[in-house]
């Protein structure tokens, strides 16, 4: 492998190639649309929209294997005077965003057939993905905010894409309003942090804080407000209200995109800001954010799972379960105290988000497939689906059992990793988190298996007929299922990278 590090191989800005590729693809789509505005060649649009993320994914994968930005090749690459940074963690998350985007664009080809404004749809997906990939690299509060808005604004449009569907428009509006409020909270928090420290760049903030500042109270409020901003993006309590409505009302591929990629983007920003700018040993006197995240994680996973258990629509159940999984992923940042192996704990969360990117996207895309067939939305409507579409139902079963933590896919291993991360911390909060993780996983098996039961065990109630087997949706669903399953035996391939990338942050 070429060590992609210094000027004599490739220029530094090449490290941003994935984000650039995504942005260029989005612009290319606008170009195609302006030449041929009638959406008469959906194949071309979907093809271009898929090619971009796939290329970006390949490049990211190559960088990860080559060790770009990792300590072994010379450490993180700083760009634009340190406003952006490319390291193992940013590449790891970019890999999640690009692979999820590729799955979404492949699946959307069938889902969008016959609808208006397809070029805009794909372009918005790619712009949001660009924003996420910049979020993964953001190294200052300013770039973080801009990147977050770049990924959020297209998402509002995507949720409301079905313009004539009441639910979609309502969901889009709700998402936009809560998003605007939480953006304001975040911006205010950033301004308070700037007020007390005088800098925006993350390592510089840590430096100033370490030297000691006067108005720690203002700083503490600022940190809490920033945490609130991330709670919105990751759909964690207390800013999770938008998630069920937005996921249910949005077109199913968009729900998949938001609940997997967008959530992971929120997490990468939170990881980087809290670990780099506010190291616990520096801000411990001001605010113990690990404690705040412990409480958030406990509440988030419990609220998500208990709400999911009482739903009667599959998509809404998945939406609440996605809140529950945000709670699991918060564990990694909540246990960064005490004796915890910090790189290991953070790596565990990254791994869970990685596996989750595939299994959750797959589950929502299966819902997209069911919507495509015109089957209803409740558990009962799924009765007997396996008789007509066994292959897709096997894939869905893999997703659901993997989400529940049964070792049918990588989800079991990432949960075990989280569990062992809590054990290494060995504080009271960590034990509580471990107990909550186990209890909630057990509970989640109950509602996930309701879908499985409906698909395989029940006799069909509705008189629907599965007449077509859309290639794109099938390819995305089956592909995601294969990756989810393979992440069980091949977990070690990914986990090494994740732990290295996380450890490099400390």
């Amino acid at each position: 492998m070429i060590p992609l590090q210094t000027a004599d191989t490739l220029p530094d800005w090449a490290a941003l190639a994935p984000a650039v590729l995504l942005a260029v693809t989005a612009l290319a789509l606008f170009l195609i649309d302006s030449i041929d505005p009638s959406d008469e060649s959906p194949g071309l649009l979907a093809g271009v929209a898929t090619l971009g993320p796939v290329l970006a994914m390949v490049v990211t994968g190559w960088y990860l294997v080559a060790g770009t930005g990792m300590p072994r090749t010379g450490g993180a690459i700083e760009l634009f005077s340190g406003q952006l940074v490319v390291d193992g963690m940013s590449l790891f998350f970019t890999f999640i965003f690009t692979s999820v985007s590729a799955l979404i664009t492949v699946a959307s080809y069938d889902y969008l057939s016959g609808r208006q404004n397809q070029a805009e749809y794909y372009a918005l997906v790619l712009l949001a993905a660009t924003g996420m990939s910049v979020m993964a690299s953001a190294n200052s509060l300013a770039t973080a905010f801009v990147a977050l808005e770049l990924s959020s604004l297209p998402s509002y449009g995507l949720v409301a894409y079905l313009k004539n569907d009441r639910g979609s428009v309502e969901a889009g509006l709700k998402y936009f309003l809560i998003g605007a409020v939480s953006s304001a909270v975040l911006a205010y928090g950033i301004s308070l942090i700037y007020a007390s420290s005088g800098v925006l760049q993350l390592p510089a903030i840590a430096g100033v804080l370490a030297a000691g500042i006067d108005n720690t109270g203002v700083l503490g409020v600022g940190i809490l407000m920033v945490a609130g901003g991330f709670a919105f993006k990751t759909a964690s309590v207390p800013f999770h209200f938008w998630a069920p409505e937005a996921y249910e009302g949005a077109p199913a591929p968009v729900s998949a995109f938001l609940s997997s990629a967008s959530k992971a983007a929120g997490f990468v920003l939170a990881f980087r800001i809290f670990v780099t700018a506010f190291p616990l040993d520096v801000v411990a006197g001001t605010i113990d954010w690990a404690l705040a995240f412990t409480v958030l994680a406990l509440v988030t996973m419990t609220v998500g799972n208990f709400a999911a258990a009482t739903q009667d629509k599959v998509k809404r159940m998945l939406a609440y379960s996605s809140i529950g999984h945000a709670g699991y992923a918060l564990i990694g940042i909540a246990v960064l105290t005490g004796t915890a192996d910090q790189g290991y704990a953070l790596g565990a969360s990254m791994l869970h988000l990685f596996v989750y990117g595939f299994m959750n996207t797959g589950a929502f895309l299966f819902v997209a497939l069911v919507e495509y067939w015109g089957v209803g939305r409740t558990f009962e409507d799924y009765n007997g689906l396996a008789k007509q579409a066994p292959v897709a139902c096997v894939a869905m079963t893999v997703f659901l059992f993997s989400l529940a933590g049964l070792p049918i896919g990588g989800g079991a291993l990432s949960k075990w990793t989280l569990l062992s991360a809590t054990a290494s911390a060995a504080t009271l909060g960590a034990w509580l988190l471990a107990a909550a993780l186990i209890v909630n996983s057990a509970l989640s098996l109950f509602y996930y298996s309701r879908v499985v039961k409906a698909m395989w065990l029940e006799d069909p109630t509705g008189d629907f007929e599965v007449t077509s087997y859309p290639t794109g949706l099938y390819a995305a669903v089956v592909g995601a299922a294969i990756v989810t399953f393979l992440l069980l035996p091949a977990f070690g391939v990914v986990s090494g990278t994740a732990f290295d990338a996380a450890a490099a942050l400390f």
Partner: protein
Amino acid sequence: MLVELLILFALVAAGIVFLVPDEYAGQSAAVLSLVPVGVSLWMYSIFDGTGNALLEGSQPAFETITSWVTLGPYAISWHVGLDGVSMPLVVLTTLLTTLAIVSAWTPIDERESQFYGLVLFMQAALIGVFAALDFLLWFVFWEAVLVPMYFLIGVWGGPRRKYAAIKFFVYTNVASLVLFVGFFTLVFGLGDSISTLGLPAIAQALNAGQLGSIGGVSPSTVKLAAFAALFFGFAVKVPVVPFHTWLPDAHVEAPTPVSVLLAGVLLKMGTYALLRFNFTMLADVARANAELIAIFAVVSVIYGALLALAQKDLKRIVAYSSISSMGYVILGLIAFTPHGVGGATFQMVSHGLISGLMFMAVGVMYNETHTRMIGDMSGMADRMPVTAGVFVAAAFGYMGLPLMSGFAAEVLVFMGAFRSTTISAAPLFTGIAMFGIVIVAGYLLRAMQKTLFGPFRLETDYDIGRAPFQDVAPLFVLLALVIALGVAPDLFYTMIQDAVFEVTALGLGGGA
């Protein structure tokens, strides 16, 4: 590499059969499943393992260790290997899978490719359970067995199949969760003294007394709590009275070929895990609580038999009698004598064959008569002489007729338990358990007399004739195996003895 080959082949076969059209699914599954049978028999013939795979100085056969994942301080490996305990169980699994597939040709008539695909998938997971020597790997396979079983009962079962499937799933998953937590308590207690989750490393560290305290709780309390959690987890699977209530529902609703695998192999997962975990890793705790465990065993024997006596459904009778037979296994294990533990292991194999045979015989009769109620039929020997003959032979095997494998297994268990120094008043416990045989004879003779003999009478509207060849052939294969093991128990007993001998010396004085 042979273990990997077995598992991988079963997985691939499952995938192929899943995609084959329904008409050819049964045949192709049977043909494909012959390969694991051949490979496992060949492995048996070249088996060269010595000692117990979990203990020092042993050399498991077909062992491979490859790094899989690293979870914090623990290296997780793909670590498989067979010793004298697991080798016979792997052979049992492959043989019963093929026979169950053939016996499914007649009763299973919808969604066939899915059915056979799931059976083969379950076979892969079962082989993994018996071969895995790393905890997480073992747990992956352990859980993976549940998923196909849930579908096999839930989709192809009887009228109350959904209830039975959910009940099975919930019971066994709760059990898995408890044992998982229990095991990790031990792992945390061992702290730095282990660097892998390999079962041998953990067993040896525990037996060397390296368990530390957790959060101020003393090691002996930790051990006791972990033992209780593991025992509960496995007792549900076995099942031991009073955790048995899922079993009759699952058996009655499951289609016969699935019952064969459930009774024949899945119940053995519980006793196998008890032997590996509770009685090998925590032998000192087991010894300290020997009387309590012996009471569980004896109650299972007697209560299971009494429940069987009260049933009117042939399949329920066989299902409850399994509880009784598993009681003997527990009794043999807790005796901690070479013949006790060895006989218990032998009983696992023997009961797998005999209960499989019984379920199949009941299934063949059901295929023709469409009833399993004792009161609905009599004189079946008149119309189905071959099947009736096999049923009688199987019943005698269950009762422990000499020269059948049940006799060898039970004699060994009783010999071992009688001499046990671990259980106080061992002869008393053994004597009570032996009385179970009398009840077994009672209900089986009554069932046979009512259904097979006397004047022919059938309360259903089906015209019955002789069972088709494909239904009867598996019965004869199993019967031949039962007799072969009864005449020459050493086919398996030598390797079992070699593997369990050291277990009986564990927990005496050593340990924390």
